[in-house]
């Protein structure tokens, strides 16, 4: 969504912005302006730039989201162990406090930047932009962004990554997709983690979790795994390899993808040739009817 190209305008609202309909005086004489701008335009603008940073180097960026304690960092540790020899990987860690997670990643020999958000419950595109500048991106294949543990707020913020992965761990209960539809609808892949606990938690039925997921009309793959059994990670590692190949194929076609489904294929930002309109303060970011 952006407020410079007019993609906020839909058949349902265009009557508001056409032919001066948006710019009129109210009956009390106040100036009345129809805007129709996404409240997160500024974030989305930065996110598009982050994505261009990554696309230029052919890097695939994955945003890991879950509630606290679902096993994001453990999954990363196991993944780095499995892929480390073949791919160059870096990690951005988001937490309210501590460098603990970044230290766990660095112990695997992988560069990690810790973003401590203080009281912020989510990462945004500006925080990730600063973190990108602390990383050596050249030669990198994969960037994992481990978001703040939270099933609500991170879902609203594009970080400039390509794919969303949502984790749901067995101890949490299988109705999480029904309780947090915004998060799970945005997922490109859902991982059911800690499956080694299924025998002791029979009330969690992976099939029920998947049914709740399908009720959100998403075709995102649903994989069950546990870091305790490395063989169970194979489909996840396979998915990463396929996504990396897809990212390189998109790059060759001059395309990129926003997270949240294949419908989000978009042309890459054109840099330096005027193909991308910057929106800065003081410019009209809304649809102005000039008389």
């Amino acid at each position: 969504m952006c407020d410079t190209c007019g993609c906020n305008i839909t058949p349902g609202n265009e009557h508001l912005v056409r032919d001066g309909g948006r710019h009129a005086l109210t009956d009390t004489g106040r100036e009345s302006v129809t805007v129709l701008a996404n409240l997160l335009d500024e974030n989305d603008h930065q996110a598009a730039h982050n994505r261009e940073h990554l696309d230029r180097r052919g890097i695939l960026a994955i945003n890991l989201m879950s509630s606290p304690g679902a096993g994001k960092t453990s999954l990363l540790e196991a993944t780095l162990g499995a892929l480390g020899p073949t791919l160059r990987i870096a990690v951005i860690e988001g937490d309210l406090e501590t460098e603990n997670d970044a230290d766990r990643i660095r112990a695997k020999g992988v560069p990690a930047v810790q973003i401590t958000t203080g009281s912020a419950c989510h990462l945004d595109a500006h925080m990730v932009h600063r973190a990108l500048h602390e990383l050596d991106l050249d030669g990198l294949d994969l960037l994992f962004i481990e978001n703040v543990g939270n099933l609500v707020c991170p879902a609203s913020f594009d970080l400039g990554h390509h794919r969303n992965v949502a984790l749901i761990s067995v101890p949490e209960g299988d109705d999480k997709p029904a309780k947090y539809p915004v998060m799970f609808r945005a997922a490109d892949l859902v991982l059911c983690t800690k499956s080694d606990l299924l025998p002791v938690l029979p009330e969690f039925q992976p099939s029920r979790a998947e049914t709740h997921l399908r009720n959100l009309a998403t075709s995102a793959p649903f994989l069950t795994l546990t870091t305790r059994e490395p063989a169970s990670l194979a489909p996840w590692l396979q998915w990463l390899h396929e996504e990396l190949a897809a990212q390189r194929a998109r790059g060759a076609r001059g395309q990129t993808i926003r997270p949240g489904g294949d419908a989000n294929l978009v042309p890459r930002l054109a840099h330096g040739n005027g193909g991308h309109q910057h929106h800065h303060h003081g410019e009209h970011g809304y649809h102005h009817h000039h008389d």
Partner: protein
Amino acid sequence: MHELSICLALLDQVQDIARDHGATSVDRIRLHIGPLSGVEATLIQQAYPLVAAGTLAEHAELIIDAIPVRVYCNQCGDETEVKPNRLLCGRCGGHHIRIVSGTEMLLAHLEMTRPDD
């Protein structure tokens, strides 16, 4: 509480537009918020006065239109209103749907006072 971040972004946009129009005060702000945006209207209402204090939008009336979740079914062609956690066609139960509304997080409309109004 990402509503505070979103309120800050809202106020930036409102102030930019008010400045462009030479307005002395912003009197009314209308938002469109759908449940699939992940934003709670009541939390926006609570956060707004904290963020707007001392700005020319301090006394603006904040109106939030709740936009229903509607899906268009590619199978039966019907458009139905559905719940945020059940995005299947309300008529035939099909899952080949397109979301028509409910994801909005928009600054829709502003009313401002200009010195020469």
